[in-house]
Structure formats: C-alpha cells, structure tokens
C-alpha cells in the first residue's frame, strides 16, 4: 500500500513539475539539473523509500534492477565509444587536442594523488573492503569525465554564449574510458576467468577477453545495422545484442562500461552507416537514461540512511570530489591558456574548468558496485551527489558577446 501511495505521490509531483516547466522555462541552474535527469533520480528515490525490503516482490524487483543497470552501463559505454570517431577527432585543431590532453593529465594526476592520500579514509569511512588500486582508478576515471554534449543555457538578460573551442570534443571522456580499459586487467580481483574449459589467466588473458568481447560486440552490432539501419527491427536487434553482451560481462566479472566502449569504437570506425547509428542511439538514449536514473534513485532511496550510505562522511566526500576535480581542471586549463591560448578569457577558463559532469560520471561510480566489494555504498552515493552538485555550478556568460580568433 505504501509503495502504491509513493508511486501516486511521485507521479503527482512529476506531473506538477512537468506542467510548471511547460508554463515557464526554468532558471538555468534548474534546467541544468533537468538536462542531467535529476528529476528521474528524485522520482526513483521517492519510490525506493517506500518499497519495503520485506515486500514479497522485492526480490524480483532487485534482480530486475541489478540486471537492467548492468545492461544500461554497457549502453553508456557504447555511447562513449560511438563518440570516439577517429575521423572527427582529426578534424579538431591540434592545439585543442593538446589543451585537452593537458587538462586530462593535470586532473588525472591531481585525483590520483588525492585518492592515494585518502586511502585510509576510503577503507575506514567510505566502506571499501579491498582493492584500493582499482578504486583509485575508478575515482580517476570519474574525475576525468565531463558532461557531453555540453548544453547551452539562456540566461535572463544575457546574450547567448558563444561556443568555446574544444567544448564539444569528448576527449576527457574517451581518456577516462581508455584508462579503465587499460587499468582493469592488471587490477582485477579475479585473475582467472573461464569461458567453458578455456582459461584466461593474468593480465594478458583478461585484456584479451575484454578486447575480444568488445570487438565481437561491435561486429555483432555492425551486422545488425547492416541488416536493418532504422526502425523497430533495428532497435530490437541492438537491444538483444546489448543485453546478451551485458550478461556475458556479468558472468565473467568484466566492466560493462569498458566492453561497451570497445564495441562502440569498433562500430563507429568500421560501419558504413555512421550517421544513422549516432542518430538512432541518441534517440534510444532519451528512453534509456531516465530508466537508469530512476533505477539508481530507487537503490539510494531504498536504503536511505541505513545500510546504503552513511551521512557523516558524505558531505566532506562530495566537497572533496568537486574541489579536487575543479582544481585539477583549473590547473590544466591554466597551462593550456599559457601555452596555446585556449581558453582566451578568464571567464571562459572558469566556465570550462567547472564544466559539469554527466551520465558517464554516474555510470563510472555505479560500475564500482559491480567491480569492488563495499561494506556500504557511501562512496557511490557521494559520487552521484557530486555529479548533480557539479551541474549547478554554472558561470553566466559575459554581458557583451565575445568572438574567438
């Protein structure tokens, strides 16, 4: 009964929010959260809060949720892989690539240092049970990611901001995923994987298995897109392949994000139907992301304050994550400004240094549930909250429009 009431209340609030949104456009800070799908997370939290663990259908729901999140992680990895179109990357100016590389190096280095320094805190207060190196890798990947594509906001009484060079180059996301792909095999908790009677042992074996799964997934998706480029049949086949691949990743304890990423890279760089695939996946993303956020919200809401996370270390964690990432990016962009004049102004420096995080960031945080052992998920909750807080740190554009040379 409580669950049904929570559902009705949740939908009522959602409905009201939608009505208000239709009447008047939201302020950029709220709009940023809306684009980040925070409302779906809140809906999930509300529903999860009233879904009792003693409920007879809870077990079925839990199985569903765990598997669905696994498959969606693979989908998000695939999306990131699809943005790794080598042809597009070559089209960007070399100075933009250098600038992004500097930022990636600075942010990565800064995060690794911070994570190493707080290793004991991870064990004592944030619920990590073992495998600190892999946790540090995941934290680094998390800090590297940024929201892509960057949305534009119409600020009241301000001109529409002009795009900053390199703003729509997802290099940091690509590097984050590449780091996860490279670092996972040597740091994996299980060093032996069996596929039937065939053992995959050690770093090389696991790397081979991951690469194989990714490439096979990419080839399978390519086959399905060759048969049906658009329409319901294409959606069905792609969904089937993604779900089967996610199941394979779960069986072999591989990170779904990395396998999806490798599949995406293969697919986008080998297929003849690039534009159709990108458009198709973007459309499907609009359905998949809300489901992902609602499911994550239901996990957080369900265990609120009890087992899932601890309140006391949560706020320092969130602040630390935001500050470390912001400082790393600021240092990187300062170097870039000095050497390559990207960004040109201090306002632009602030804008791109505090560029918010997005779905991929949350996906990396959630991937930790599948790869690491935790006593409680304070770390994951902190990362999710940090993402949404980063989305409300927006710098308004200057009063006078500027042009880039």
């Amino acid at each position: 009964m409580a669950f049904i009431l929570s559902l009705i209340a949740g939908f009522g609030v959602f409905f009201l929010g939608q009505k208000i949104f239709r009447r008047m456009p939201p302020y950029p800070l709220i709009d940023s959260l809306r684009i980040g799908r925070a409302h779906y997370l809140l809906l999930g939290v509300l529903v999860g809060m009233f879904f009792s663990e003693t409920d007879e259908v809870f077990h079925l729901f839990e199985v569903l949720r765990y598997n669905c999140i696994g498959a969606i992680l693979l989908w998000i990895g695939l999306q990131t892989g699809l943005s790794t179109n080598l042809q597009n990357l070559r089209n960007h100016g070399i100075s933009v690539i250098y600038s992004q590389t500097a930022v990636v190096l600075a942010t990565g280095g800064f995060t690794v240092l911070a994570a190493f320094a707080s290793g004991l805190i991870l064990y004592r207060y944030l619920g990590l049970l073992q495998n600190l190196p892999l946790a540090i890798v995941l934290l680094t990947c998390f800090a590297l990611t940024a929201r892509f594509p960057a949305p534009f906001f119409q600020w009241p009484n301000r001109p529409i901001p002009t795009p900053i060079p390199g703003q729509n180059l997802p290099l940091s996301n690509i590097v984050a995923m590449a780091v996860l792909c490279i670092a996972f095999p040597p740091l994996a908790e299980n060093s032996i994987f069996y596929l039937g009677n065939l053992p995959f042992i050690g770093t090389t074996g696991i790397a081979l298995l991951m690469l194989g799964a990714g490439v096979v997934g990419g080839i399978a998706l390519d086959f399905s897109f060759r048969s049906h480029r658009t329409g319901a049949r294409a959606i069905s086949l792609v969904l089937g392949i993604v779900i089967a691949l996610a199941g394979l990743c779960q069986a072999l304890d591989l990170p779904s994000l990395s396998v999806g990423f490798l599949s995406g890279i293969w697919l986008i760089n080998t297929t003849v139907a690039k534009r159709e695939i990108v458009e198709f996946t973007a459309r499907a993303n609009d359905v998949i992301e809300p489901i992902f956020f609602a499911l994550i919200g239901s996990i957080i809401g369900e265990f609120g304050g009890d087992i899932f996370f601890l309140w006391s270390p949560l706020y320092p964690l969130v602040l630390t994550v935001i500050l470390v990432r912001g400082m790393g990016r600021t240092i990187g962009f300062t170097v870039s400004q000095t050497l390559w004049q990207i960004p040109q102004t201090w306002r632009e420096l602030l804008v791109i240094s505090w560029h918010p995080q997005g779905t991929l960031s949350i996906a990396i945080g959630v991937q930790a549930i599948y790869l690491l052992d935790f006593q409680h998920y304070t770390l994951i909750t902190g990362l999710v909250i940090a993402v949404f807080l980063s989305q409300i740190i927006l710098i308004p554009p200057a009063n006078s429009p500027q042009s880039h040379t």
Partner: protein
Amino acid sequence: MRLFCMTLGIGILIWQLQSPPEMAWVGFLMTASIVGARLAYRAKLPNVLGMIVVGLAIGFAPITTAESHQSIKPFADIAMTWVGLYLGTSLSRPLLANRRLLTGSIYLYATPVLTTFSLLIFFDLHLITTLQLAILSGISSPIFLDRTEHNLRDTWPFSLCVTAIGLGLLFLTGLIFGVQFIQTDGFGPFLHLAADIALVVLMGIVGLELAHRWLQHIHTPTGQFTSWFTLSFLLALASWHIWIHPLILAWAVGLALSLRTKRGLRPNMRPPNAEALIAFALAHYVSGLVLDWQILPIPPYFYALIAALILGKIAGGLLSSRLTSQPVQAWLPLLPQGFLAIVCFESIASEIAPLYFICTGIGLPLLHLVVDQIAQKIKNGRIRTLARRTQAV
C-alpha cells in the same frame, strides 16, 4: 545468414558459461526470436510463427533448464505486460460502435462456442470446465496478424472484438466460483474477499485515471515509449502482488484506458509496436511450455475440442459472411488461437496446453496459409480465364 550466425554464437557462449546470468538469456531469447521472425518473413510465413518456432527450438535445446527459464521470468512478465497493453489499447469505442463489425463478431464468436460446448458436454468433464473451454474456443489471434501487411480492413478489428467478447465471458464465469465459495465457506469469508477485491479495484481505478491523464500529455515518441514502459513495469509488479497473469491484467488495463477516451487513444498515446518485447515474451512462453511438457496420454476430449473449434470457426465465418457480407479472406486468418487464449487455456487444462498450442498456434496458421495459397491460385486462374475469354471476344 550473418544474423543467424551471430545468434548461434551467443547460444554457444551461453552453453560454454558454467552459470549463464539472466541477462545473457534475455538477450539470447530476444535476438534469436527476432532472427526467427526474419527467417519466417523470408519464407513468406507470419513473423510470429518464426518467433514461436524459435521458442520451441530453445525449449527443446539441452542448454535450457527450468532454473534458467524461471530466472528470467520477471523480464518476460514485463514483456508480456507490454503485449497485453498493446492488444488491449487496440480496441476502441468507435470499433465497438460499428454495428456490422459487432454483429459479424458475435456470429463469428458464438458459433464455435456453441459447437464446442455441445460436443464437449458428452465427455466426462466438469460443467464449468466445459463452459470455459467452449468460451475459449471462440477467441481468435490478434497477434498472428501483422497490422501493416494484411490487406483486409476488418480482420484486425474482428479479432479484437472476438477476443474481448471471449475474455469478458470468461471473466463472468468467475462469478460461478464466487457462488460456489459462498456455498462452501459461508458469507463472512466471502465478504472479506470481496472487500479486498474492491480495494484493489478502487486503487486500479485511481491508477487508471492517473495514467489516462498522464497519457494525454505525451507529445514525443520518447515520452510515449518511456511512459508505456513504466506502466508495463508497474503492471508487472502489480501482477506479482495480486496473482493475476500479467498478460490478462495488462489487456484489461489497456482496454479500460482505450475505452476511457471517446475516440480511442491517439496514435502517439498508444503503446508502440515493440517487436523485441513481443518476440521475447512469445519465445519465453513457448520455451516454458516445452519445458513443462510431460508425455501423458492425450485425453479423449482433446480431438473433439480441436475438431469443434475448427468446424465452429469455419461455420461462424460463413455465417458472418452471409449475414454481414464479409469476404472469406476477412475471417479466414482468425482460425488460429492467440496468445491470450493459450494463456487462459493453460490455467484451465495445463496438462494439454502445449499440445493445444501446437495445434492451434502453429498448425492452424499453417493450414490458413495453405488455404490462402489455394484460394489465391483459384482466383488467379479465374482471372486468367476471364482475360483469355475477353481477348477471344
């Protein structure tokens, strides 16, 4: 061929894994059934037949176990709910207001029911079971029809009306069980049960009204898919709570939502035809039937049931053609029994459900295809003869 090899590859991978996880099974069933549909399409057979055959093949395959099948049931229930919503929302008030269609449907439905009842009454069966089996025999198969492909306007609405009449009557037989309950347990426990049911119905009405208001605000395909997926998920959850088959519950909800609006749901308000979910639901259900199949002696009433069903449907079709001027092609595709009928049949006579499904779900569509081909050839021959005569003149 590429897709077939890919599906085979996924199957081999699952076979190689010691304990394949649920998602691998879901993905495999989904991909395999869609490939089956594609192969069937190439062989000029209905898509659904391909999905069913794949489900049968997976059910008989050594890699499928009862545990793995049961583990993906929650996913299959969501897919079933989607199918139910899709079928339920297809029937609308304007369709029911069409007198010619309704009269034709009543003839089409009543004849097989009467034929089956009058034949089964001679067998050693409980009266209520006989009545339920007869009611089910009139139901047809909307799912076997491809709405985009069949060229006769009335076939799809016919099947929807016939199914609605059948399921409505089947629901009314539940009242007989209510009377029996009062006779055995007294009025007190019945009141308790009735109060529980009333509460569920009340919550259902509130939920339906909310869903209806929600659907009116859908403007994009994304919103359409997300909303219906959410509704399917919630209905699946509800079906686990109240122990009603998700397909039946979703069909009823879909019908109620559709009848709530004057002219039926707008195209962008209706659930989209998600082939993946339909394929997955069918393949999972059929493989489950195969796994539950026990080699038992076939009861004597089974043959009578099938014969009465076929004869009754043909007679009903002819009657409908005669009285409402429907062409034969409009009712001939309605010979096979559909998914809804099989699901209901399983709860009445589960021991012969697989056999019943093979006869009415696979045999009859094939029979219809053969008849259709023969009719087409005869028609073509007549046209050719006429053309020759015209040329001669």
